[in-house]
């Protein structure tokens, strides 16, 4: 039923196109993994190099399409909340079926994974002997499996949504009982988040790349928990409103999109710097700096809301 909602339909149609493309990539990669030999001047090697170029175009295209589609996905979930009884924002519709949450995580993971693949692809293109070609094609089967999993979850989720069954709204979902991480309280979560940021800055200044990567990884989680428990409440100006999705609505000037874009860029460049070092052995100051800039912007935005609230109301929530 919910497949006929235009947004969901478009998501499905585009995912089918991507599935076809990723299947083509899988097919080509299988050939490359088996027969790749850069030293050979045989006709077959020449053909494989051409096909390898097609794979990188297809994956690039997939990522370029997946990012707007992810925003459309969030928008569609938000719109579904109007139809589902009890839901007031995407939190309700994401939890309407047991697959919704998994689907969301899988979508986020896939965007990171595709981006990492493209980082390796870029490194590969820069080398004269296409050193990492085999490596990047070894990853294609995983790309395929992850994407197929996402598509399966997508179908299970949207086929399973029943508009007659009431769902919970965000305030009922994000309580301290629902998860260990949410039981730590707003202040504490923000303190942990700030310590995390300070560590991140120190490792950046002293160029500890591996440690930077680890803190960057943890930063992704602490920042979201602090956003739900602390910063979010100042955006809503309501201490009981704990929700990562309502931020995306027009009532709060769609500020959520800014939060999540900054967080994605910051953490992605962090991961990408680490992958670059892992694969090529050389560290890229440029990417590292990008990561730090976006992570800092996110931190500033997270501090700005509570601070401006305090300055205008002379009290904390």
């Amino acid at each position, binding site marked *: 039923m919910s497949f*006929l909602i235009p947004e969901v339909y*478009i998501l499905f149609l*585009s995912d089918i196109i991507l599935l076809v*493309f990723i299947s083509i990539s899988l097919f080509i990669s299988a050939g490359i993994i088996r027969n790749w030999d850069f030293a050979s001047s045989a006709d077959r090697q020449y053909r494989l190099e*051409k096909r390898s170029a*097609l794979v990188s175009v297809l994956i690039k295209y997939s990522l370029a*399409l997946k990012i707007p589609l992810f925003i459309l996905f969030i928008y569609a979930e938000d719109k579904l909340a109007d139809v589902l009884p009890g839901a007031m924002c995407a939190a309700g519709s994401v939890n309407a079926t047991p697959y919704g949450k998994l689907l969301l995580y899988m979508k986020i993971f896939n965007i990171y994974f595709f981006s990492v693949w493209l980082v390796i692809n870029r490194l590969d293109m820069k080398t004269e002997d296409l050193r990492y070609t085999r490596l990047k094609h070894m990853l294609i089967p995983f790309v395929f499996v992850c994407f197929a999993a996402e598509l399966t979850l997508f179908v299970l989720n949207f086929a399973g949504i029943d508009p007659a069954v009431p769902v919970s709204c965000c305030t009922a979902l994000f309580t301290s009982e629902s998860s260990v991480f949410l039981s730590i309280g707003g202040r504490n979560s923000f303190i942990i988040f700030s310590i995390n940021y300070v560590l991140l800055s120190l490792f950046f200044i002293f160029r500890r790349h591996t440690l930077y990567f680890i803190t960057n990884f943890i930063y992704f989680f602490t920042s979201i928990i602090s956003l739900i428990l602390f910063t979010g409440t100042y955006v809503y100006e309501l201490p009981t409103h704990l929700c990562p999705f309502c931020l995306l609505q027009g009532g709060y000037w769609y500020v959520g999109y800014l939060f999540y874009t900054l967080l994605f860029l910051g953490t992605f460049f962090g991961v990408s710097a680490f992958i670059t070092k892992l694969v090529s052995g050389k560290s890229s100051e440029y990417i590292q700096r990008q990561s730090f800039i976006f992570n800092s912007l996110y931190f500033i935005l997270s501090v700005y809301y509570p601070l401006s609230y305090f300055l205008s109301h002379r009290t904390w929530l």
Partner: protein
Amino acid sequence: MINLKLLEFALGSISARKGKYIFISLILTLIIFLSASVFYITGALRLEASYTLDSMPDIIVQKQTAGQRQFIRRDTADRLLEIPGVSYAVPRIWGTYRYEYLNSNITIVGVDVFAGHLPKDIETAVKGGGMETLLKPDGMITGAKLADTLRHIYNHDEFSFQKPDGGYISMKTGAVFRPESGLISSSVILMNQDTAAEILGIDENRATDIAVFVPNPEETDTIAEKIAAMAPDTVIITKEKIKAMYQNMFDYKSGIFLLIFSVCLFTFFIIAADRFTGIGREERKEIAVLKALGYTVSDILKIKFYEAAAVAVFAFLLGIFLALPYVFVFHAPLLKNVFTGYSYLRPEFVLPFSFSVSDTVIIFLSVAPVYTASVIIPAWKSAVTDAGESIR
């Protein structure tokens, strides 16, 4: 990010080979035009429906036994008024009257002019000189379009209703009302409550349903639960439920359209892919020269993408530009019927202007992925053609 020199080259390449692109951009424009029209019509209808929703009661209580709707006792309203949070509850008398001659239904609404919380349109009709008509037992107020239709058939402003027991009641048109929304009101007749009950065959102490008004929307659900506990033989419809139903209905209709539309998209995909695969000798030579000059495969791919993107943007803008006047100036002839159904007393409504950015983005996303996908593989094929072979 965007290489302007390559973009310039791509635009030059399009103007050099106009024939190849005119056909594709025409089809693409048509497809975008169609899909945009459907989305804009749905948007306009949704806006039209929200006019109706605004003046609706927060809760409607109907009686239902054995799965059949029954007339509800009027004094139930007094019991509902005792629930804290309910500001007003009133029994309403309305129903449809089968008009065989036109094979249509007329909606008869009994209006109690002294009741509060009248729907906006009815209140305007009452205040605009309809008061006296509604106080008379044989006066009625008809919708503007319906008044015209009746005058055409009978040549005077009178209409005889047949009662369920076979007798007739003659009513005179005392006034005409022009509601904000044509969709709901071009088959509506307003009249005195007692006369309406007589025509519709409703007992003196019964009503069609009871409208309940709740000033605080947060309390609506709780009050609905209380009513359900108080009167288990009722069906309770809240405004929220109706809103969700409308949303579902419009999504469903545009979804069905999209389903059929996807066949169209698929055909387009094949045509476009086929068109782009056929590279002429000239073009092949051009690519070979570029490669000889030191262009990489990815540069050539970029040029091909810019070409495709330029066509897509042009077709998208043109499609939207054509769809807007088609829907909002000419009120979507032909296509509108898909959404409104067919009846002799078909509402002559106009589509209110409602341009939504999110709909426009969705239109773009419904066509762009398919189109760009059809370009990729042909573009790659032309980019990797062997330079030496082509020049020879």
